[in-house]
């Protein structure tokens, strides 16, 4: 184990994997200068034959990823901001997500699309989206949302070595976060949730950027006599339905924290699945802490008014606490 920042862990995976497999190519806007830091030294190390600093044209870049993969390469496409999933959406939805199925399984598409998502930094509506819902809904792509540097390493390695299109959603605000990262070969399988903190009274299912505030709230709740379990799906497609359900069946209460807009959010989907799977064990309604169905505003005070903050998570848990405080008293 060694301490690494989240963004460094990602950067190291790019360097390691491209060293290990010369069939990997990487391209995207400004990857040469690495404005997010995650592609630092990649261009310098592997050169213009494998790393392409592209013009600004996401709609062609997503289609080119498909073509390069169909031609046998293993592709990493850096889309910069999560919002640019939308500008590149045509080929994502119509080609990347569909061609394997539509060709009868003839075409493997080993593509990792990486981009930073989320708000909270006054970047306003066009640079603050969390595109989980649209990506979860395209039918043929994995959606990966690591919260920690270790999971960033393990999930990115799995994504790059896999044969399916995978959207690796970088928790932008967490670039500076550091944590213990296993050294050497380390892969985290898709579809396996992680329990960050065990508890008995309520399950807080937190996604990506929301894991950190969820843990803060859980620790605070502990002082208040409420034992919260914090579970992190780590991948939304595939989703560890059984893992999350096991936690919910144990605690009987569920709060889901998700930075996407509420309507058709990952939280909404998980709520529906858990209502179905755990109905007989639920002691209270399932609560969602999400962003309302509006665009992220610029001014900090306005942004924070709609952002899923620790206070809102805390309030959501308290709203269904009811008997658990009594039972723990």
């Amino acid at each position, binding site marked *: 184990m060694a301490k690494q920042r989240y963004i460094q862990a990602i950067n190291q995976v790019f360097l390691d994997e491209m060293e290990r497999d010369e069939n990997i190519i990487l391209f995207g806007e400004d990857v040469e200068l690495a404005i997010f830091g995650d592609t630092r030294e990649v261009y310098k190390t592997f050169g213009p034959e494998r790393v392409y600093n592209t013009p600004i044209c996401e709609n062609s870049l997503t289609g080119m990823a*498909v*073509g390069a993969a169909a031609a046998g*390469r293993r592709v990493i496409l850096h889309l910069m901001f999560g919002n640019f999933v939308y500008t590149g959406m045509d080929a994502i939805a119509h080609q990347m997500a569909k061609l394997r199925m539509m060709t009868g399984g003839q075409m493997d598409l080993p593509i990792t699309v990486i981009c930073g998502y989320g708000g909270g930094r006054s970047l306003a509506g066009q640079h603050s989206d969390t595109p989980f819902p649209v990506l979860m809904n395209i039918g*043929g792509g994995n959606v990966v949302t690591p919260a920690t540097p270790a999971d960033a390493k393990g999930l990115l390695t799995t994504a790059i070595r896999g044969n399916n299109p995978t959207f690796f959603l970088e928790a932008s605000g967490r670039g500076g976060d550091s944590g213990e990262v296993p050294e050497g070969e380390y892969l985290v399988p898709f579809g396996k949730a992680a329990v960050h903190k065990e508890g008995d009274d309520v399950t807080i299912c937190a996604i990506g950027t929301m894991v950190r505030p969820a843990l803060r709230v859980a620790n605070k709740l502990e002082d208040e006599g409420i034992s919260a379990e914090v579970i992190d799906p780590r991948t939304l497609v595939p989703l560890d339905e059984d893992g999350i359900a096991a936690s919910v069946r144990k605690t009987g209460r569920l709060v889901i924290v998700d930075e996407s807009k509420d309507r058709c959010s990952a939280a909404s989907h998980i709520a529906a699945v858990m209502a179905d799977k755990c109905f007989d064990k639920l002691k209270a309604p399932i609560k969602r802490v999400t962003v309302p169905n509006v665009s992220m505003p610029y001014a900090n005070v306005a942004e924070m008014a709609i952002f899923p903050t620790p206070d809102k998570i805390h309030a959501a848990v308290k709203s269904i606490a009811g008997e658990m405080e009594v039972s723990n008293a």
Partner: protein
Amino acid sequence: MTELSNVDEQRRADWLALYERMLLIRRAEERVGKVAQAGGMPGGVHLYIGQEASGVGVCSVLEDSDYITSTHRGHGHFLAKGGDIAAMFAELWGKRTGICKGMGGSMHVADVSKGILGANGIVGGGIAIAAGAALGIKTGKEDKVSVCLFGDGAANQGVLMESLNMSAVWKLPVIWVLENNGLSEFTITDKVTAGEQIDRARAVGMPAVSVDGNDVIAVQEAMQEAVDRARAGEGPSFIETKTYRIRGHLEAEDAFLGGYSYRTQEEIDAWKAPDKDPILRFATRLLAEGGASQADLDEIEERIAQQVDAAEKFAEESEDADPELIYDITFDGQRP
């Protein structure tokens, strides 16, 4: 028949092969059109009839290992690149023996083993894929080319300008083939297009040439030059093949048009005349300069009739597509 020199013999064989491929596409699609009109297959079909010289001329200089991307009007490209007619028919009929196991249908016929990266239901959908395949070839240091077949409708998609730009700036081994039939679905392309589309390639400094798309030899010659340039590492080229779509945008088009039309019967008839139709024109030339006899052409006609009958029988008799397969093939090694 007079004695032919070796050179003439080779040309006779080559030309007959071109003729046979064009006629195969024509007869296959005539059958598909007939069955579709009679409601004998699911989905809609978009026929390539009238444009055969373009796809056949283009693919005649390619190897199986070279890539093509195609359009929603892709049967002709599929057969021109060596796709199997029976597997294509079974696909159109929605059968598990189809080239895409019945999961793609008419607008999505693909055979990756032959470099056919697929017909595509999105107008312009193949453009960035072709550029990407060329990027893949270049980064893999492979001796292949990528060919993007697209129409004048697709040429108005913004993705073309983006991909032309990247292919030129990185000298990608790609040949852009604009099959200009003058029609964007149900709209005359000229009415919605400023300037000449070929100039969009010239704007990024790419060699660009316009040829008679109903002359298979003219298409082949332009294509050979472009492929040689790409294989030599000299980058992309752009070819416009001027042609015409004889059939409607799709086979059931009359039902959509409700008595209205976007073109005249006289125009259609003019393009069907022996001096315009790519197959009739080439037959005349084969007999006059290619050393072929009417008996040669009759023999080809007979052979193709049998192939088309056999393909239809195969499609008809094959088992329906397997619904369970959806869950097995959406991802590699993973259930959705």
